[in-house]
């Protein structure tokens, strides 16, 4: 079953602009993770935020988590053409065993030079 839902489904921006995408989920979580997938390739882990954290930064990435609203956002600042990819949120719940993750359908981001 799909736990996370990303919004928007697609996003088109110009280089230098910021890109924001959101993820909503349905049940309680231990942590939420964001992954990037370049066209036709495997996923690459970007950042993990635990349920007791509200904000986390990694380079040009900023992730927020609001457990009361069951939502998270990923902000990419000063975007580059190389940021063109699909972005997925994934959640690990307290009852999920063995590190299982539930992935959303993804947000497709296109950054034009």
């Amino acid at each position: 079953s799909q736990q996370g839902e990303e919004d928007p489904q697609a996003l088109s921006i110009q280089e230098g602009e910021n890109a924001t995408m959101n993820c909503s989920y349905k049940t309680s979580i231990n942590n939420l993770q964001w992954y990037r997938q370049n066209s036709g390739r495997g996923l690459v882990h970007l950042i993990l935020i635990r349920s007791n954290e509200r904000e986390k930064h990694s380079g040009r990435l900023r992730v927020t988590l609001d457990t009361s609203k069951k939502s998270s956002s990923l902000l990419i600042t000063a975007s580059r053409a190389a940021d063109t990819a699909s972005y997925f949120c994934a959640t690990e719940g307290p009852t999920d065993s063995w590190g299982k993750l539930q992935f959303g359908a993804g947000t497709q981001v296109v950054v034009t030079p």
Partner: protein
Amino acid sequence: DVKVTQSSRYLVKRTGEKVFLECVQDMDHENMFWYRQDPGLGLRLIYFSYDVKMKEKGDIPEGYSVSREKKERFSLILESASTNQTSMYLCASSLWAGRPNEQFFGPGTRLTVL
């Protein structure tokens, strides 16, 4: 760096064939996962394994089986391929289940069943 490799990037098979997809990781990870990815549906978990010879069904196990005879290798088997199994198949591994940790993905195998 963790490396997860998959045996083929592209594969074309005929309906009814038995298909083997192989995945190997080189970092002694406990957990391994098989997903399929279809447009608009994200990643759906087929099977996962938390130890050698151990396996658990994911969300969509029907029509698939798996094998994990060695820690580094996790195989996905389509017993009798059907056209609705045409998809991108992604293998992943993670260190262990005792704490939050990321999954490392292979490059994927795009399978077409004719």
